[in-house]
């Protein structure tokens, strides 16, 4: 079988996958991105490259993807619907594929109000579900969105999407996940899990509908650097649930690396106890150097058969 990407193969072969996140800089040098990629190289299967996260202008996700590919890290290019219409999206998909990108993650994108250009006009010509289905159409039907045939070299991405079990309406989150899978999403990365009980209830509904059989679900985890960071996510970010007990634990901890310890416990719990989850997505916000330690101590290393898998990529 030909795989669309290394990540695709790792998941298809049943490995518990590990992905992490690299946020491009607010300047025109790739040095930081490259340093970051080198740090992650041996401990992840692929790394997300965020697309102007929180609507702040940054080095483009596709360009950053090209840089990290050179470091031997497979990129998961994030693409939001906020800044591009259907013409620009397709052009970027062709361009990203031509540069060797093989994984693409579709998101709505944070509203521009949260960023450094709040007066910008948002696009949202497509939403994330539509972006997924249109990408599948390009790959499986060799057609542009308009229906015109892509005569050769259609972009063949491993298509990813996100799900947020902590947003409302809770039950409808599973419907919407199904909608994304129906549209063509093959892997799903979730919002950071802090409320394990709610995540488990979410996964129960996901399993009941067999969605874990139709897409690979990677649970998002985040090591919290301090109790203040936890409090901020709890009160300042919509669509997050951070239990008080976690905030208190971090507040009372003597170890400055308590957040790493919590994250490792979460990963172990998810891997051993939550059925239907096929990997973790470690979002170490402003704490990137924590990822290798987390992967190591959570027993996720070494990552399996990178070389062998690389050979069978389409």
């Amino acid at each position, binding site marked *: 079988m030909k795989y669309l990407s290394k990540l695709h193969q790792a998941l298809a072969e049943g490995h518990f996958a590990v992905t992490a996140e690299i946020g491009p800089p607010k300047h025109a040098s790739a040095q930081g991105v490259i340093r970051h990629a080198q740090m992650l190289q041996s401990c992840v299967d692929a790394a997300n490259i965020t697309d102007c996260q929180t609507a702040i202008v940054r080095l483009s996700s596709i360009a950053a993807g090209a840089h990290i590919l050179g470091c031997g890290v497979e990129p998961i290019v994030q693409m939001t619907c906020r800044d591009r219409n259907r013409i620009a999206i397709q052009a970027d998909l062709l361009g990203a594929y031509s540069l060797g990108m093989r994984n693409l993650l579709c998101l709505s994108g944070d509203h521009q*109000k949260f960023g450094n250009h709040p007066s910008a006009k948002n696009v949202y010509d497509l*939403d994330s579900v539509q972006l997924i289905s249109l990408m599948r159409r390009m790959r499986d039907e060799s057609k542009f969105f308009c229906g015109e045939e892509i005569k050769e070299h259609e972009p063949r991405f491993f298509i990813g999407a996100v799900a947020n079990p902590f947003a409302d309406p809770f039950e409808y989150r599973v419907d919407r996940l199904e909608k994304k899978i129906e549209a063509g999403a093959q892997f799903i990365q979730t919002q950071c899990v802090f409320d394990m009980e709610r995540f488990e209830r979410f996964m129960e509904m996901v399993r009941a509908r067999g969605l874990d059989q139709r897409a690979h679900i990677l649970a998002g985890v985040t090591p919290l650097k301090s109790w203040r960071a936890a409090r901020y996510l709890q009160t300042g970010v919509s669509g997050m649930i951070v239990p008080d007990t976690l905030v208190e634990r971090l507040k009372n901890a003597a170890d400055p690396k308590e957040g790493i310890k919590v994250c490792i416990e979460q990963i172990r719990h998810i891997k051993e106890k939550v059925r239907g989850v096929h990997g973790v997505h470690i979002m170490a916000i402003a704490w990137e150097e924590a990822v290798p330690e987390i992967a190591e101590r959570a027993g996720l290393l070494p990552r399996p058969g990178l070389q062998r898998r690389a050979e069978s990529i389409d």
Partner: protein
Amino acid sequence: MIKAQQKDIREIAGMVEGCHKVLLAGCGGCVTVCLAGGEKETEIAARALRLIRKRSGKPLETVTYVATRQCEPEFLAPLDELVKDVDAVISLACGVGVQCLAERYQDKWVVPALDTKFAGGSKETGVWEERCGLCGDCILHKTGGICPVVRCSKSILNGPCGGSQHGKCELGQDIDCAWQLIYDRMKALGRLSELTAVQPPKDWSKARDGGPRRLIREDLIADEISE
């Protein structure tokens, strides 16, 4: 209906700075309903302008007239006489009214007194909220009578996005999540299953098809000829 809000009176005064006599034209349509450009508001604006000019030592003469609807040429004829001896016309109608006057009075300086805000309805006394994006391709039958195009901050057709929590939009507690409202209503009506279909991208050509959109009713045109 169209909702509008009067500009700061000093801004309006600035638009007619060099004029000696102006006509303030109100409108009896939408802007009367939202208390921005009806008879009362037109008189108040005229008085305020005269006062500002009097204080600056350059008195202004004003005439006022409220057309039944500024967007219909048939209601504008009474303005023709009044316009003749003024230096400028200040329209207290929506942007449509301003343009109808500018089109009719080619040699006159026509300025807007209002900011045209949106097509919406009344929530409570003094509070109006947008309800229609005038997109030209209504989907309210698919979304439980709640429009995600204008009521969702991202105009998402397959919502809600991950920022919806406790029924509110990620942008703030004062914005209801349109998709929570849609979900609740469809659930109450026993029609949740209708939300599972992937809604295709919108055909924006119905909204921005180059130049002003035009509506042609051939049945009405034909009637007029036969009469």
